[in-house]
């Protein structure tokens, strides 16, 4: 088991400042299902400027994943819900963990099925390196290095507080 501890709540506070700095009036918020969507929800509750933009969108990578042939249909296929017009929108995209960049690629494809955004900016809680595609976040609350086999995922308790679960490879 890994001994790595990441204080998700402290990182969230960092993200909140980072997003405040990135935010421009007229932007639309979008969270990647599921961790990114939780972050978007919480940011809207915590930052009045974001709340003014209305309900954030939720987007799923499931229908555009490149590992469909190996993994089959991922869960969360019905998660995408975009309560605003994508055409011409400046979108601030949120995710919990950025790793290979493949999820981000799939999410951007999904987004374009709904229209042509004017721009897409990415902010993440943790950038764990290991990129396999030319994708970079505009803001990351933390950068960590983890063995490739290790799984890092955001969890949310009943009170809405965040924790990180680090899972060692199986076997």
């Amino acid at each position, binding site marked *: 088991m890994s001994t790595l501890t990441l204080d998700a709540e402290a990182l969230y506070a960092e993200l909140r400042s980072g997003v405040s700095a990135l935010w421009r009036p007229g932007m639309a918020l979008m969270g990647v299902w599921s961790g990114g969507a939780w972050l978007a929800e919480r940011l809207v509750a915590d930052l009045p400027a974001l709340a003014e933009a209305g309900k954030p969108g939720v987007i799923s990578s*499931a*229908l*555009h994943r490149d590992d*469909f*042939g190996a*993994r*089959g*249909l991922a869960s969360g*296929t*019905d998660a*995408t819900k975009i309560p605003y017009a994508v055409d011409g929108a400046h979108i601030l995209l949120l995710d919990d963990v950025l790793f290979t960049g493949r999820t981000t690629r799939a999410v951007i*494809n999904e987004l*374009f*099925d*709904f*229209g042509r955004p004017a721009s897409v900016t990415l902010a993440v809680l943790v950038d764990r390196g290991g990129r396999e595609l030319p994708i970079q976040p505009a803001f990351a609350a933390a950068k960590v290095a983890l063995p490739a086999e290790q799984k890092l995922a955001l969890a949310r308790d009943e009170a809405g507080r965040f924790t990180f679960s680090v899972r060692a490879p199986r076997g």
Partner: protein
Amino acid sequence: MLMKRNPQLNAHGELIHLLSIEGLPRAVLTHILDTAGTFLSVNDREVKKVPLLRGKSVFNLFFENSTRTRTTFEIAAKRLSADVINLDIAKSSASKGESLLDTIANLSAMHADMFVVRHSESGAPYLIAQHCAPHVHVVNAGDGRHAHPTQGLLDMYTIRHFKKDFTSLSVAIVGDIVHSRVARSDIHALTTLGVPDIRAVGPKTLVPGDLKHMGVRVCHSMEEGIRGADVIIMLRLQNERMSGAMLPSAGEFFKNYGLTDDKLALAKPDAIVMHPGPINRGVEIDSTVADGSHSVILPQVTFGIAVRMAVMSIIAGNDA
């Protein structure tokens, strides 16, 4: 004891072919219905296509004629970005004497990834599934009197859409049950999903007694059969499959078992009326019922595309 594995499932219990609803666990059926819900919303997007089957070839093999089912499979495969090849097989190789397995071997050599098969012989899709390459998936689009699993699933999707919960429903299946692969698939699905009251309604010649073993109540009286029902599934009178004098006449059938407003009044006030199509107006169903407020026959067709997208994407994502 050596248990023979269901040929539709791989060693992990995942669906790799869809041949029959019989023997599939409830979780597999529910997963298909949930996934279909996703694909229904793809119709609301600007781009009404998802790339899950991009680069895959789906061969529609209809050894028996069908317009609606073939078309909905074709639309479903195209919305998943597959290349679709429709083979009018009844008019080509089979009529020249080629065996079913030779036809399949030839099409496999053309790099088919999925076969959607309709055949007048019960079991033909099983035979194909047993003999095709491990990466090839098979969907049964209706085989003889045996099964029509995607119709069964789209019926379940329709029922769930309008009634939400299966576990308190009374469902009446009315008409030519002996010839109906739809009825058989519906009964297996309804049983698996926990419907407590399933009635098979029709004359003795068209409602086989062995249905009792499937957990179904056999009713030869229409009034008894549809009284208090939440869902009425009307079946088409299959003239082309009928041999001998199973019925006095279509008129006589309509008088006793045709669904009219009067008979529908015996069902629950919010009952839904379904039909797999094509409908014979004035034979098994009155026009006023088919076009009336209880009818969900056209939503069934729309849901059918989403359900077929779900089936194809799920099996294509699982390895043998």
